[in-house]
């Protein structure tokens, strides 16, 4: 905020190719890419931005295996200690069938934990965000490709670069 001239610029493009072209040009000039907003995931962008915290898979694995182990423990405790019941002479600890419920429960726990981890690493739910106030931002969920870049010093050269690359509209972001 101390240097108002380096406010990030949001550029609107009509095609994903134009966005990728602008992204390469801006990066070559030494500007910092903050984010891109596209109506569908673009493969070209996956390496371009510094990776977000993405703990989804480890969290899912931990929750899934943990919940499955806990469920197995519960079955073992209830069938062997708390309520031993001789069912047709089968062993109290009937491990082959005791694997079914932990599997189902583990998958459910992994799904729920993964969903929570996904929201957490996206910073959601957050119903309002400064980018929502930008012109044309509502098109990012439909048919426009937006790029958010922080200029390295003065914004004018970056703005020129983005316009050269085919930006329909370049606007300064506030807040």
């Amino acid at each position, binding site marked *: 905020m101390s240097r108002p001239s380096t406010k990030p610029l949001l550029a609107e493009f009509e095609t*994903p190719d134009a966005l990728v072209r602008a992204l390469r040009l801006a990066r070559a000039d030494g500007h910092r890419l903050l*984010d*891109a*907003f*596209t*109506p*569908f*995931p*673009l493969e070209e*962008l*996956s390496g371009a*931005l510094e*990776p*977000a915290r*993405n703990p*989804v*898979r480890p969290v*899912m694995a931990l929750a*899934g295996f943990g919940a499955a182990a806990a469920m197995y423990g*519960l*079955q073992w405790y*209830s*069938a062997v200690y*708390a*309520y031993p*019941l001789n*069912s047709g002479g*089968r062993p109290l600890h*009937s491990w082959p*069938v*005791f694997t*079914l*419920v932990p*599997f*189902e*429960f583990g*998958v*459910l726990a*992994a*799904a*729920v934990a*993964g*969903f929570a*981890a*996904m929201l957490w*690493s*996206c910073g*959601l*739910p*957050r*119903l*309002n*965000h400064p*980018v*929502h106030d930008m012109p044309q931002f*509502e098109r*990012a*969920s*439909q*048919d426009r490709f937006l790029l958010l870049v922080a200029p390295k010093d003065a914004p004018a050269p970056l703005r020129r670069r983005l316009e050269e690359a085919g930006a329909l509209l370049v606007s300064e972001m506030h807040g």
Partner: protein
Amino acid sequence: MTGGAQAPRWIVPAQLSHGAISAAIADPIQKRGPGRLWFYALLATLPFVLVTLGAIGAVLTVGIGLSGVNTTVVWGFSIANYVWWIGIGNAGTLISSMLLLTRQRWRASINRFAEAMTLFAAGIAGIFPIIHLGRPLYAYWLAPYPNTMELWPQWRSALVWDFWAILSYILFSALFWFTGLLPDLATMRDRATTRAGQVIYGALALGWRNSARHWQVYETYHKTMAALAVPLVCSVHSIVGLDFAASLMPGWQESIFPPYFVVGAMYSGFAMVVVIAIFIRWGLNLQAVITPAHFDVMGKVMLFASVVMTLSYATEWFMAWYGGEPADRDVVRYFFVGDYRWLYYALIACNCVVPQALWFPFARRNLWVLAGISVVINIGMWFERILIVWNTLSHGHAMSLWRTYHTSLYDLAILFGPLGLFVLGFLVLVRILPVISMHEVRQISHDEGAAA
């Protein structure tokens, strides 16, 4: 199967632009009224819904005696309906996740409503085991919780496995479906013209911004869920198969039951998806995104499933003969010459013979023929489930107990009523949420546009 260098197959070229795709899918909900036909359809489902609620109320107050079960044939319509609905319910997530993992991009046009089909069908299926309990008020005893009776569930019981399988599956499917919906809810929010639309879709979208970082995390989660969904779905219907196979009854205690049930689920589920796709395509004018190529591949999948089902039936007969157990051999003989033989022949005709028409491209491309075959498959799959129950129970080990089932009015109510409930669910859904995954269709259009 992906576009490659060929002309676009999964989307009509005139509609390639991203904006046109959003408009085609979102506008019927946000800009156009439901239309008179929709109201008529809604009214037509109401009697079915009332019948369903009445039947459930009746069986909860009067008791299981309303059903046609007797001391020999202790299972009946409830169990057959349960297996039928959960089979349809399994297919949605199975189709969606398997096609995602195998990179079948054409799934984008069908996965959303296939997953919604899962939610409605699995929800309806969940009613049946409860209303079939002799004492439904104790259904919660299936859950392990500390109680003053110091009782615990019997973990070796197939009913307890069912409880966990259905519970996990419904909640998992709801999450999978909602995750896929999230970016589309953001589109709906951004296209909404009314304050109420912005607030409701905005709240549901949780503030989704289409950021590249969001997409990255989203894709990780969605793909991992798909990878988990495939074994989960197979386990759910295998557990349904184990309800039968874990017994000692002739005709049930077969190791082929779990996989045979899974294929049966995929079979009836694909047939149901085809029927729903035809209705949605026609009702919402989505000819541009659900193309003849979609019906062609779905027809091929049904044909494949039909061949596997036929092979499974043949294996059942062969194993009974090869195993040499007299009771097993006698049950298979009873299939063909017993009390329910005409239903059994109908089953063979519906599931094995009629779908062979799908070998011909004409049958896969003509929607009337395809819809007819799909309905026939669903009828045949219901016959299969009721006959699995009836044939074995009517012809068990003890000859002195051999009896047949006598269908009651209540049975018919719980057979036909829930169909209306299912249709009602879809009618409401198509008016409030995008039934086709907009962001995935945009991606296909991008890929096909680049290829063409």
